[in-house]
């Protein structure tokens, strides 16, 4: 949904709500190339990605989450985040993270067939 890409970009999120968003990789955010995403006081729920239900960081991209709530998100791999090839430090502080699930492809097929 939000791509922080090439290069050295800054994204700051405050007091926002992200719900029922989907993507292949990074259900809400993808960050790379020395870019940063900083999140304050926000809520993430019911988001889905095949890989990384909320955020995927790679190629020295990084993120910081503060005072936020992340729950009921899901992915086939990594229900909240994946970090690849990162020299910078990502941080999660004072956040509530719960009920996020890794689902199997079988579960997805069942879910898709229901819809």
């Amino acid at each position, binding site marked *: *949904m*939000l*791509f*922080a*890409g*090439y*290069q*050295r*970009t*800054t*994204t*700051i*999120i*405050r*007091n*926002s*709500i*992200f*719900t*029922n*968003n*989907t*993507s*292949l990789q990074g259900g*809400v955010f*993808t960050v790379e190339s020395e*870019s940063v995403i900083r999140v304050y006081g926000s809520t993430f729920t019911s988001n889905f990605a095949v890989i990384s239900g909320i955020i995927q960081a790679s190629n020295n991209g990084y993120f910081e989450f503060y005072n936020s709530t992340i729950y009921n998100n899901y992915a086939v791999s990594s229900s909240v985040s994946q970090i690849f090839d990162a020299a910078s430090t990502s941080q999660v502080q004072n956040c509530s993270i719960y009920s996020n699930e890794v689902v199997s492809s079988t579960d997805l097929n069942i879910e898709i067939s229901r819809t």
Partner: protein
Amino acid sequence: MLNNLTIENPQERIAPFREGFLIHDGSETVTVNNTIIKFWGSLSEDKGQIEKHLSPNCNPSDDVVQTVDITHNYWTMPYNPTQDRFVTFYTEFDQDYYRRMIVNYSYNLHENILDNIYGLNLAYCTQNTEIWMTNNQFYNVSCLQGAAYAVVSDKFIIENDLYADSTDFGFDTYAIMDTNEVIIKNVTTRNVNATGSSSEYYFYLRMNNGGNVTVDGLYFENSNVGQQRGLFVQGNMNTFIMTNLNFLNVLVGTGNTLINTGAFNKLEIYNTTFTNVQNETPNDENNIMITVNKINLGNAQNCIIKNATIENSEIGFLLFSSITGTASQTVTFSIEDINYQNCYFVNQKNLIEFKQMESQQDISFVFDNNMFNNVTFVKRGNLFLLQHQILNPVVLQNSKFTEVTSGTIYLESANKQSSNFSTRVMISNVTFASIDTNFVSLISVNEGSIIEIEDSTFSGVT
């Protein structure tokens, strides 16, 4: 030398060729009223069916007001076997002549005319000239040029004029140059097909420095603008104010713009509708409804575009091109109450664009209460392309995006070498819902750009 010339009463008059009426070196007052005039002629030898020349020899720069009234006449050209070109009224003043002149060209009906160069051709007037062109109607006029051409005047007023049912328009329907003030009120173009090039215009206004343009009621209906520009303004204006613009069922050629603002200190645009404004051919692209050409911060005041509706249209809405000068105070450019709905873009890449413009001055752009609903980019495109590098962020607030397909808010600091400012955007209290990204990002942040998002909701972005 005549002191006064009056041609009146509804008897039929025929000006077969050359000048129908030539007034040379005087008189002070000319009236052509309530007359039927049938004519043909050639431009190379005959400038106008009614022609008036003034020189300083016979008209000293006194305080007498020279008046020319051409009103309530019927102009037609039933027979033009050689398709010669002509001007209906032509006047030329010596440029050193400063007596005040008032031209009143009103309630004239032009009908069934071939190759009308201009209805009104004021080849060279003076800064004291005031021209009123009101309540004229042009039907089935095959024009090589257009309704009026004027060089040098103090004030030009166009009011209640109608152009209809005509083809093969070229050049400039209204070309008004070196003027202090232009007022356009309730002017309609209907069922007109343009054939001019991109250097030709429906309205071409070349304003004097500090000039003012006021438009209240401009209607384009069922017409093809083609390659010609719509309303194109040049010069460094003080104010440019437009209200009640209506574009309905209009075709636009590739790379065109319907309204180009020129440079200004103050711009205000209220109450515009663009309904079914489409590309002329399926391959056309990069068309813009409004190009904000240059914001001159030297004496700038706050600017606003407010209450616009863009519906069932395929061309881009807004392009910000450049900023110049030094601001003496904070300047806010507001874009308020804009509704984009049911728009389907095939080739168009950008709906709203900030070109690479750099400024360290204190100007803010604020999009407030904008609604985007059912907007689709077939080949992917940008809801916003943001390449500005200015002091303050572009603000998008209190707005809603719904049912958007393949549209991106794309940030990019276009000048990678600039060490002054990055492209900055603030999104505040905005709702994004039911967005189909088609595997591209809804928001894409690139090349050192900075985005801040607060108090916003993202739901159903897939």
